[in-house]
């Protein structure tokens, strides 16, 4: 609370400084000095909060205060969290930050309820969805003596930190990296989400079961999209269908040309469905252009987990399009899991946002990290790694059972089916309507009439 106020007060002050410093030679230097002083002050603050017996800890978020009233000998464990608070994934990252806050509160309450006189503290850093920064953050954690890090988000970032964490024995738990190239045994990388291969299989089953035989796979031209599309193609062929892959470039201002090219291809190939493998921004963009195309409105649409929970998808145009093309998506989800429903409810109550993709995986990553540290009994990377595997064997959280396979990835990932249906405050809402069970998709309800 206090720090938040401080920031609010000091921000305009900095603004004033930068406005008036236009013309003087010394002002450039002064600005550097201000920055350095600010850093020094902040650093002093950091040392103070780190070493003193502080009973109020600010955990990541702006309003969170974990008030702990216990004996002064309480042991404090810091856990590093590197999140994409800026950059490409920042809209998800902001929600994740709140999940982290909630997870640490829950974790602390839980361990203290069990009688442990310890406190876990999140050290949250922004990695800007950039590889180099992810490494910088992990190094910074390591230099602060932190042995367990939650994140980074993308596979590319995990790859960059891998060599460093392996040699410095720091446990990395990524809640959202799904690249199959990271399924490597005996390293310090753990992932609390199933790989893309699993979801691709579910999506292929879903599409085939819905009677679709020839699909165009429209996918992000990045590691996620490419791997997902390859797996989808493989499984869909095994089932007896045909898949044509069209990659599209990411980071474009708009995807209208891509969608039009997709429409041309769908028409010329006579495909009966489009499978879209996208993130939120590009997914929403593509869907809203597709909604204007008669060709694309005349085929079925299936979507990966990326666009799920993006606000832009709940517009009227996309909602209508969804029911017209009977749009169905898959996502990692242990459906009808009371813990997940509880997390969702509390996120809405507390922060006014619904959890986005991978929130439950992130939540469980935090919990697992905490319990693994306690189980290890010593704050040492190798011990924690061993303990983490053991803890995960019996842990059940919002993301379901969290057991790791020999590669350190989530062994059993359940998948749910989602749709966009009328309802909710925005007119349309996301709804989980089915689940995948032993090779078939079972619908709990029919979303589209």
């Amino acid at each position, binding site marked *: 609370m206090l720090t938040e106020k401080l920031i609010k007060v000091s921000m305009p002050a900095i603004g004033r400084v930068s406005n008036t410093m*236009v013309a003087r030679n010394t002002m450039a230097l002064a600005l550097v000095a201000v920055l350095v002083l600010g850093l020094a002050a902040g650093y002093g603050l950091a040392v103070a909060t780190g070493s003193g017996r502080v009973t109020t800890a600010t955990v990541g978020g702006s309003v969170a205060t974990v008030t702990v009233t216990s004996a002064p000998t309480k042991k404090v464990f810091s856990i590093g969290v590197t999140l994409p608070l*800026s950059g490409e994934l*920042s*809209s998800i990252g*902001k929600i994740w930050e709140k999940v982290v806050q909630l997870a640490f509160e829950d974790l602390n309450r839980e361990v203290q309820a069990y009688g442990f006189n310890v406190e876990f503290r999140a050290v949250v850093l922004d990695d800007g969805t950039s590889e180099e920064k992810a490494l910088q953050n992990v190094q910074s954690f390591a230099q602060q003596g932190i042995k367990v890090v939650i994140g980074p988000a993308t596979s590319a970032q995990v790859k960059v930190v891998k060599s460093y964490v392996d040699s410095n024995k720091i446990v990395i738990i990524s809640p959202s990296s799904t690249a199959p190239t990271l399924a490597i045994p005996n390293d310090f990388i753990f992932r609390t989400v199933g790989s893309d291969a699993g979801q691709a299989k579910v999506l292929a089953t879903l599409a085939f079961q819905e009677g679709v035989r020839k699909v165009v796979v429209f996918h992000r*031209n990045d590691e996620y999209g490419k791997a997902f599309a390859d797996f989808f193609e493989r499984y869909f062929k095994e089932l007896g269908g045909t898949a044509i892959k*069209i*990659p*599209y*470039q990411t*980071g*474009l*201002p*708009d*995807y*209208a*040309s*891509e*969608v*039009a*090219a*997709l*429409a*041309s*291809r769908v*028409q*010329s190939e006579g495909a009966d469905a489009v499978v879209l493998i996208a993130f*939120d*921004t*590009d997914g*929403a*963009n*593509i*869907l*809203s*252009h597709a909604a*204007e*195309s008669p*060709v694309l409105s005349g085929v079925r649409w299936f979507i990966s987990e990326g666009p799920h929970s*993006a*606000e*832009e*998808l709940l*517009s*009227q*145009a*996309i909602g209508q399009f969804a029911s017209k093309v009977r749009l169905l998506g898959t996502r990692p989800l242990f459906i009808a899991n009371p813990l997940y429903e509880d997390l969702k409810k509390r996120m809405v109550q507390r922060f*006014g*946002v619904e959890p986005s993709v991978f929130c439950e995986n992130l939540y469980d990553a935090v919990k697992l990290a905490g319990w693994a540290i306690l189980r290890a009994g010593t704050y040492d990377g190798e011990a924690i790694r061993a303990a983490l595997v053991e803890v995960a064997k019996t842990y059940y959280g919002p993301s379901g059972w969290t057991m790791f396979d020999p590669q350190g990835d989530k062994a059993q990932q359940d998948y749910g089916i989602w749709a966009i249906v009328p309802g909710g405050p925005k007119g349309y809402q996301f709804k989980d309507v089915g689940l995948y069970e032993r090779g078939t998709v079972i619908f709990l309800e029919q979303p589209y009439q």
Partner: protein
Amino acid sequence: MVLEYQVMINTVQYAFFYLVFSIPLTLSYRTTKVINFAHANLITYGAYTAIFLHGVAGLNIMSLATVVAFLVTGSIAVLNNVLVFTPLQRKGSPPSIVMIASMGLWIVYKYLLYIATDIANYYTSRNFMSYGRITYLDIPRGVGPSQALVAGLAIALITVVSLYVLLERTKIGRAMRAVADNPLLAEISGIPRTLVVNLTWFVCGGIVGAGGVVWTSFSGATTPEVGDSMILQVFTVSFVGGLISLLRTGVGAVLIAAVENVGIALLNTYFGVPVSFKPFLTFTTLLAILIAFPPLGAGGGLPYRFLRRGRGSD
């Protein structure tokens, strides 16, 4: 023809956007000789003016958004000129230094907008990092062409016609052209150069911002990166015009729009070239044009600098 009619519509739509974004770039460079990186911000700020009006103030009237955006981005452009470009030019800094300064400005504006979206997100809990298409109340819709096409056509027409009238038919326009052709001479002959330059910046900045507003009715999801991810294409279009000719810039807008829409759709449908090659196509076109038709005159490389009027001809 297997090409979807949407491909054609997109070509026209993109041509409108490229026109509205590139013509001011060419015009401002011609008059002020500043390669303005911060041009990207003008697009983004135009779009985000509309988005903030919609998301924070709840207004979805395009004509209002266009006027506000025109004022906002026009003022930004003038501010850039008064605070940065003019002082630098007065000190005799070479164009490359001014360009690098505009790069600094670009960074500042870009991240200021990010900060603004974060603050807006904090207070409204809406996601401004990626904002869905805005449906405006005051533009005809329903069956037929989309809102963006109507608005795009309108704004492109208004831009072209008003610039033509301004440049060809008014005193101010003649002054602008005089400053562009020979700043020194213009000043000697009593044209208030500072005023003309600032006016140019205002008009150019404003047009780009207004184009940004139209963008929000077109794009499926607008992000604070919209201007940045389009800036290379916009510069490519202006380069086709050699950064001098407004007419050739217009041709460039159509050319690049066609390459990016018809070109990639054809290549994908008939040759299986991945759609993701689209940026590759654009930049190859740029390089090919630069190599085949190097710009002459001030914009040209050393071997072409003095060939303003062509080798022996013209």
